[in-house]
């Protein structure tokens, strides 16, 4: 196809796909809403897309665990497409429930579909938390955060399970953005008014250890974050900081294409 197109993957219970498309459009990108059902039926194929986003929501009602069914279908029914997509070095973004899917599918942090090495646990408060947070960009090594290192981004969070847990195998998260290969690379941290990573609620809405809000894989192509950049992208929004992530994608796609 002519322009590089991003697939926005959604399933029953996903509820942030349309605004994610709007944010991509605002960043000058082109996107299709792609039903998981259609991929499984073979009526379309991930190979047709140059990038993908798994947006937020409560896919399949979060039955058995946040993102669990979506991740199981991804890994079990679409494994080949997924592996091919990752091998082709295409960017992949998981927002909120999408991050939970990537974690449950083993795609983050280790790019190992079917081998979980992290989970996103219920918030420390055991409640859904709707907040507007500050994120300090810990690393610009991901294509999504290129050139943003050290910046503070303002955007909403809204989730009940966002507290990262890394399995012993994976080196636990450190504030050092450059990490060994099996490590979980921190890209975004919840920050206080002074822009320092914080454990203080509600600046850190879920009690995330080391204030981790978003991580990337070793290539920096795959990013997962709990906050919602698509809700801070349009002129009507209280902040347009989220647009920077989507602009980075459209620039990258333009250069690659």
């Amino acid at each position, binding site marked *: 196809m002519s322009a590089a197109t991003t697939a926005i993957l959604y399933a*029953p*219970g996903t*509820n*942030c796909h*349309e*605004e*994610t498309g*709007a*944010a991509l*459009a*605002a960043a000058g990108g082109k996107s299709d809403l792609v*039903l998981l*059902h*259609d991929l499984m039926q073979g009526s379309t194929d991930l190979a047709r897309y140059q990038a993908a986003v798994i947006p*937020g*929501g*409560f896919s*399949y*009602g*979060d*039955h*058995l*665990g946040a993102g*669990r*069914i979506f991740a*199981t*279908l991804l890994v*079990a*029914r679409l494994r080949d497409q997924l592996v091919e997509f990752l091998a082709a070095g295409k960017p992949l973004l998981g927002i909120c429930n999408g991050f939970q899917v990537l974690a*449950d599918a083993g795609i983050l942090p280790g790019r190992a579909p*079917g081998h*979980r*090495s*992290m*989970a996103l*646990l*219920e918030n*420390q408060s*055991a*409640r*859904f*938390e*709707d*907040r*507007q947070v500050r994120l300090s960009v810990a690393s610009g090594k991901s294509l999504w955060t290129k050139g943003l290192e050290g910046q503070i981004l303002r955007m*909403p969070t*809204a989730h*009940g399970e966002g507290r990262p*847990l890394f*399995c012993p195998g994976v080196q636990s998260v450190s504030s050092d953005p450059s990490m060994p290969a099996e490590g979980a690379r921190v890209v975004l941290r919840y920050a206080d008014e002074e822009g320092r990573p914080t454990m203080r609620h*509600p600046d850190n809405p879920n009690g995330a250890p080391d204030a981790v809000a978003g991580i990337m894989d070793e290539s920096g192509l795959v990013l997962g974050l709990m906050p*919602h950049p*698509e*809700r801070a*992208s*349009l*002129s*009507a*929004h*209280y902040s347009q900081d989220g647009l920077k992530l989507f602009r980075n994608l459209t620039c990258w796609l333009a250069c690659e294409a």
Partner: protein
Amino acid sequence: MPIHTIYTLAKDDAEARSWLAFFRRHGYPALAGLAIERVFWLEGDISVERLLPLLVNPLYQTAAKRSQLDPAQGPIVEIAYRPAVTDPETPSILAGARALGEDGLELARLSKRYQFAGLDETEARRLAARFLYNKVVERVREPGELVATLRPTGSPDPVGTVSLLGLSDDELDGLSRERSWYAPLSQMKAIQAHERAQGRPHTDAEIEILAQSWSDHCFHTTWKSLGLLKRLAAATARINHPLVVSSFKDNAGGIEFYEDWVVTIKGETHNFPSSIAPFGGVATKHGGVIRDTLGFGKGAYPIGGTTIMATLDPRLSDDEVPPGALHPQLIVSESIRATAYYCNPMGIPMMHPVYRAHPGYAKCLALGHSIGLIPRKHALKDAPRPGDLALLIGGETGRDGIHGATASSTGMTGETLEKESAAVQIGHPITERRFTSAIPVLRDAGCLRALTDLGAGGISCAVGEMGAETGVAISLDAVPLKDQSLTAWEILLSESQERMLLVVSPEKLAEARSILDRYEVGATVLGKFTASRRFEATWKGRKAVDLELEFLWHGCPLDAIDTAEPQRRLRPLEIPEPQTPEDWSRSFHGVLSHYHCADQSAAGSRFDTTVQGRTAIGPYSGKNHRMPTNLYVSAPLYGKSCGVVTTVAVNPFYGEIDPAQMARLMIVEALTKAVVAGVDYRDCVLCDNFYTPRVRPEIAWDLKRMVETVADFSEAIGVPFISGKDSSSGTFEAPGPAGQPPRRIDVPPTLAVAVLGRVPDTRKIVTKEFKRAGNKLLVVGAMDPATPEAPALAGSVYADVHGQRGDRLFDPGDAVSIRSVWDALLSLHRGAIYVSGSAIAEGGIALRLFEAAYGSGLGAHVDAARADVAWASHSLRSGQASPAVAGASRSYPSSSISRRVRGQACPERSERDARTTAAGTAALLFGEFIGAALIEVAPEVDVEESLGGVRHCVLGEVTPEPQLALADSGDMLWREAVSSLTESWSRTFREVLE
């Protein structure tokens, strides 16, 4: 087939922790620990190992083939769905298993084991029964219970007949109560006469349908008898507002937005189920009103919602709560959990989370709104044609919610909790979310002739209404059941949630089905529309229903309702005036920590306010996003600046003093909240939700005056109501002490008004928080600080803090003067003259000053004398000519406003004695001048020009230091840091939830 079990435990179980804290708060302080073990029951020839990745995450869960709980640690209560009822998770598990190549799995079910350390068996079971399951669909599994199969089993009763011939009036009444029809004698006799005429006894299904279709909930018998049902619609028709597209005929009302889009609004109360089972009741309150949006025209998309809960004071001690009523603290916390449980997965932003308390709400007010967006060309339904198909989509039909319509139409007694628990529905947002995505696709593909939601009365009501003009014939065998033991009338009346009825022409059926498949929405053809003018339903080869629609919709007799003017026992306010700084401090802390004024974000922050990426201004804003905005602004068209604005007003205190004036004030308050933000009232419409006690002559008198006042007033200001709902069952009967008659608790006459408006540019909305130190603070609008009896304090939070109510409500003047204030504000807004603004309501100017300071990090300095001097000079200049004065003196001759102006001429007013000053100052700060607004302008700005004859006064200015300071002619009366006031403001609601 073999049955396998897997027991899982979470290593760090936040859910168990929060339940533990919750139970300790709610009567189980002895509870020392709580563990929750989840059990999967898997039937089929399978390798359990292969399913583990689906069911367990070893990173935070442990799994075993046997229970991992040590029985010595405390009693274990295991809760599961009843054998006849399917689990909501089952389809997800089967889908996951198939994906993993485990086709041998035939059925999967779940149960949860709760272990209560520190309780005995009996206490544990009592706790579980109260909080952890709904006995209509769930049960306690007994230890060692053998399971042959997991298949839902159960066998239904056959269709029965009920003959009313020869029954005496008493027997008819008794039967009506015993069968939970709650039909008045006149209706029972009409059914009896109909049986005689048709020469055969009715089937049980037919009588059930008549009883619920004629219930107050569905048929609005009270409003019809009083001739009120068409009253608001008639006023709206006379206003003939150019923006109104659909009013009072569809599931919601709709107005023109921009770019060929229509926005809709609907408010729905769910008071009865929320009072007896708050979690289920409130969850389905949201589910139901969202389906009203989906069921508007050919399917609108929900883009916002509200939750408005009014209960008894949650801080009551257990013995202060009437027997048979749930503790209000439980109702509030469960309602918050339910709103989060339903609205967050639906992906619909919360616009207005509002919590109120009043000693009359033993039967609580549970109100939710839903606003929607739909293309102009799909905003009107087509009429079903004979031959069209009735397509039932969504969830399966179960035993939940049977008799919801009839039970919710009757008063609530101490026993209702027990008897009608079956009337409470269970909600599963994922099922509704599926068709929320599918319906716009069906609509745009032209598959829908019409659609409606299944709510009260279930299939019978939806099918009966859709087929009212034609006739309809359905087969109940086609209805997918989650409970195999349902008989015909139960299938017809079940109020199982998450179901919609589509009207599809035969040639569109295939396309509709394929779309529904893609979105994984269940769909069944129930039957088709006919030309028979009859409602026919067959079940298991026999006719369960064969009713002529004429009788169903026009055969209901209306009992005349007498009206009589109520004698209110009202006393004028006698509040000692603050004199010392300590008095003032106590007054401010008292008002700011009042339940209605306090920080409610502890609840609001549990609801998603930004999902859909349309939120321009959410319910909280300001420096730290906790300042209430009293406003929601959505930019529904991505990339466009035009916006939808909503505000709400509800006040339980005013209704006690003067229901009609309260109703009028609610309209003024809700509209002023929108206008001061910069929304033209000519671009606004209204949605009404009335909640009044069980009808009797005094109640009827109030209800009539409320509705007539509201209808006339909306016509006078030219702002129409486009949808609404009436609930006339706000009475709770607590069993009296032995031998005594039951104690009747009535809700205060309540009207919740919601405004739906549009603005061309959301970025021009003016918000509440202060913007710059040194700016002037003005109040614009009718107010009257210095009258001795200070009516603006009647019904105020300030009065409630002093345990008083008052005897005469504030009057902002007639429609002309109120519009002149709005016009003045709008012209100031057009000129960008004011930089912050907020409408005066509960808590008066004092609350607004605090909120605006809190939200900005700045402060305010107010001088009461400056306010008064401004009044004097202003009144001398514009005098009686001011429309507010003229208007007010016209409508209320003894109005304080006119006397106030006469006061200007009297010499003794100039030498103001301390008491009056204090009276004036307290009333100035805490008076609830509905219709007036606090605005902030640059110091050099002269507003006289734009304000002309409109009443206004300069209050003081914004200060750099974050404190509130109050002076009189320069003498400092009181000053206090915003931070110390914040303490009181944020404590109240946190304590209610903790």
